[in-house]
């Protein structure tokens, strides 16, 4: 528990990191935008906002990321630095519709 608090104390430091920030909206079980381009070789702060009432899981094998976003919730996922290429992602709870690709250039 002690370490947990120590970690949370360190969190404000994150605000100083100058990361590229990109927002994705989930609505009607789709990602908006579904096609994104990000700079290669840089860490990216991905903000995912879920406007649906149901939870969704942002998942990408290519990015090696997986995170649940509560219904009407918002979350941050750090990705990269990525080498140039395309990285598909999808919503695990609604795989049929929630799909997208991040392209690093």
């Amino acid at each position, binding site marked *: 528990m002690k370490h*947990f608090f120590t*970690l*949370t104390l*360190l*969190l404000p430091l*994150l605000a100083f*990191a100058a*990361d590229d920030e990109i927002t994705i909206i989930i609505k009607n*079980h789709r990602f908006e935008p579904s096609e994104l381009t990000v700079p290669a070789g840089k*860490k990216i*702060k991905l903000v995912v906002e879920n406007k*649906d*009432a*149901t*939870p*969704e*899981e942002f998942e990408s*094998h*290519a990015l*090696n*990321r997986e*995170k*649940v*976003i*509560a*219904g*009407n*919730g*918002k*979350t*941050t*996922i*750090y990705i*990269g*630095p990525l080498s140039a290429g395309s990285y598909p992602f999808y919503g*695990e*709870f*609604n*795989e049929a519709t929630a799909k997208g690709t991040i392209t690093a250039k």
Partner: protein
Amino acid sequence: MFGTAIIVFREVLEAAIIIGIVAAATRDVPGRGRWISSGLLLGLLGSALVASFTGRISEFASGMGQELFNALILGVAVLMLAWHNIWMASHGAELAANARKVGKAIHDGVSTAPVLLAVIGIAVLREGSETVLFLYGIATSQQVDGSTLLLGGAIGVVAGTTVGYTLYKGLLRIPLRWFFSATSLLVLLLAAGMASQAAHFLIQADLIPGLVTPLWDTSAVLSEQSILGRVLHSLIGYDASPAGMQLVFYVATLVTIAAGMKLVNTNKPNKSQLKTAS
């Protein structure tokens, strides 16, 4: 229904493998059944609780609550498994030599039963909360009706549990001479894999650097989504495209626990071995 079954199976499989190994490794702990079922029960209750508080947990720590939470409980599981292995190593000689005395030895000594409870509880909690959220999402948003959903979920649970039980039964067939080395090794790899996952969450939260990302990419050869990839992920912490820091955590955990086991084994006066040597 099929899709539901597969997703539930994937989640259950991971927990079932962990439970199978831990249950086998502690087969001589008295009152084990009670500890296992309490662990399962607490894990399931925890799943429902975590699932319903996902929003809150996420918001915590500037949106990094989920990662911190996961890293924290994985860390607890690693410590528990480490303790179990080191304790077993210090009693290994007696255990291997005379299984009947073992029950008493464990009974008299510090039992590792609480480890069982905690590790099983954590395994169920992690996989269970995701399953609950997934099923809830389908139930509220999609055209699938309740009975189809339940059937799919049930198939997934049964299939996953079967794999875990088969693993457990298989492990129990290992001759006693090798049994403790075999299960200790499995528990060791399990712990290292969990440490690597904990590192993964901390990297995702940007709390520690990834070092080299990715260190390798074998997703084309063995995808983590394939059944084999999934099984290896649970067993030895296989990651198709890990960050360098994950390997650091993996190796550090492996070395630390192995050194701890070695230390208690050599530090121990050879009394017990002498006694049982004849």
